[in-house]
């Protein structure tokens, strides 16, 4: 059964529509990450699910019932905020227990529940402390604990790792993922960081300008992007996009060069964009050269080297070896497996399957 469903969800502020007919089904226990650039509508969607923003039109279902007109507390959800929102005047125990205020559990049951959650989060020794005495990661754990203690149908995370430093963010990412495996509740997680999305999600919802661009597993959105936006948003460095026209079963690239089209059939004369990920574009051996150009910048990353190659007036990114890579100014030949390339319509940006 779908635990959460969004049906033609629309949000407008005065005459400005910020969400355009969002449709999504989230399965029970699924970890779904909403990702997109600032202003894409991901947080607005989350806040509408939480009941913190009114729905202009459409329906939100949680656990099979429409919750549009229910108060946040009646929706069986819990939310973790970007700046933690743990109450500074309360101890960790009180903060975690705060979500149980309106619960019908007896006091000993509530205490037992708080202890259980604190145990899961490894915070048993910190229960008597106030938030000011905690580190950023510990505060975030308290916020998660406050959400967990109510055992809601759906957890909502609004960019919860944004305020943490890089190392702690990686650690918390792992902890949240482990936690999800352990408790099994449905999680909706909002982030602008595509790495977070890729590493944590069962499914990723990629949004732009209030529209869902693609919904899919990390593998799908990476290897089968629905359009040029998804292709370039997911993956770092971004996918190279080369403009061209289909001629004689190959893409004749603007500025010179031709790549045979093996994966799809495209009408002759159609303008397309050819997408190739930097890791699929590597130094060629004599026979399989697709492109030739000059290295403008070489970025050594240890295991590999990112090569910024200028060819026919445009710059593309390729991957070179970690040892003895070409240097800036070197002339290189590049090749790629045509089967790993993506063809997009030049006008709409949609993938041509």
């Amino acid at each position: 059964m779908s635990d959460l469903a969004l049906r033609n969800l629309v949000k407008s502020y005065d005459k400005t529509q910020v969400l355009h007919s969002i449709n999504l089904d989230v399965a029970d226990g699924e970890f779904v990450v909403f990702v997109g650039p600032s202003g894409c509508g991901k947080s607005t969607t989350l806040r509408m699910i939480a009941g913190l923003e009114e729905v202009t039109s459409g329906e939100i279902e949680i656990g099979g019932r429409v919750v549009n007109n229910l108060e946040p507390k009646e929706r069986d959800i819990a939310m973790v905020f970007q700046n933690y929102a743990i109450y500074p005047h309360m101890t960790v125990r009180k903060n975690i227990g705060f979500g149980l205020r309106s619960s019908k559990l007896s006091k000993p049951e509530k205490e037992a529940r708080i202890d259980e959650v604190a145990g899961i989060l490894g915070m048993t020794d910190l229960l008597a402390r106030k938030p000011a005495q905690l580190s950023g990661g510990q505060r975030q754990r308290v916020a998660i604990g406050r959400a967990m203690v109510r055992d809601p149908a759906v957890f909502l995370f609004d960019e919860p790792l944004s305020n943490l430093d890089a190392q702690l963010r990686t650690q918390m990412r792992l902890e949240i993922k482990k936690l999800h495996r352990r408790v099994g509740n449905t999680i909706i997680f909002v982030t602008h960081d595509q790495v977070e999305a890729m590493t944590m999600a069962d499914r990723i919802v990629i949004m732009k300008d209030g529209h869902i661009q693609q919904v899919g597993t990390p593998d799908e959105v990476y290897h089968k992007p629905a359009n040029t936006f998804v292709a370039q948003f997911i993956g770092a460095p971004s996918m190279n996009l080369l403009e061209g026209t289909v001629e004689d079963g190959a893409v004749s690239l603007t500025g010179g060069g031709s790549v045979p089209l093996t994966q799809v059939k495209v009408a002759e004369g159609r303008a397309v964009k050819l997408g190739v990920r930097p890791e699929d574009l590597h130094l060629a051996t004599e026979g399989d050269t697709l492109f030739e150009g000059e290295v403008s910048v070489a970025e050594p990353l240890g295991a590999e080297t990112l090569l910024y190659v200028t060819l026919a007036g445009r710059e593309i990114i390729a991957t070179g070896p970690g040892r003895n890579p070409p240097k800036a100014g070197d002339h290189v030949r590049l090749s790629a497996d045509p089967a790993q390339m993506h063809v997009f319509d030049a006008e709409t940006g949609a993938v041509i399957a």
Partner: protein
Amino acid sequence: MTATDTQIRATSAALLEGTRAKQRRSLGQTIRWLLLFAGGIAMIMPIAYMLSTSLKWPYEVYNVGLIPEEPHLENYAYVLEDGRFFGWFINSLIIAVLTTVSNLFFDSLVGYTLCKFTFRGRQIVFIAILSTLMIPTEMLVIPWYIMSQSFGWLDSYWGIMFPGLMTAFGVFLMRQFFQTVPDDFIEAARIDGLNEFQIYWSVALPMVKPALAALAIFVFLGNWTAFLWPLIVTTDAALYTLPVGLSSFGDEADVQWELIMTGAAISTLPTLIVFLIFQRFIIQGVAMAGLKG
């Protein structure tokens, strides 16, 4: 002139410049100290005179000397044994405490609403409240009196208290402070199942305790020392507040300054205690109101 001479000259010039800079700094420091000293004297002198006069006999009250010729505590004994003084003290205490509690509750409630809720006309309401700050009390006294007379509030605690139960300044101060409370706390509490009043009471209010403490001191002091309105609205001596009662020591022909000063000295004690306990909150409160304004 050798290179060594040039170096010596340059070093001497630098040293001289350094000494001049030090002199300039120390002159500035001295001026600052003098100004602070003058300010301090201006503040302390009335208190010193109050204490000095309270230790004088009536015949030397008009002697400008600060040290009494024959210091004594008879005035204190007289004032404390006079039953009226105790009654006025209690009146002032009741009025100041009730008004303070009322202000803490209503000012913060209105401030919170104006800060955290979006509704049509919010800004107009806020400006309307704020604009009342520009009306001097003297202008309001007559309407208040007519109102009190119409409702039968003359010579009553309510009559003395009602104009100050809520203040525009308090609303403004609290609103500014509530702006420092991130909306996420409010929304988190909403999701945690609290109703709007519980959110205000259990989440928002504890987070602005410094502002509440500062407001409590402002309101308490203001009401403890209030003179004009309590004087107008009360004719029954039993309902006088301390300042009004103290001014009644004596008549037009003979003002008993030594007793007035003794009563004033005793009446400053509660305010002094309140101030000593909460002064750090006052400073923070004023600073925050200034910064966030």
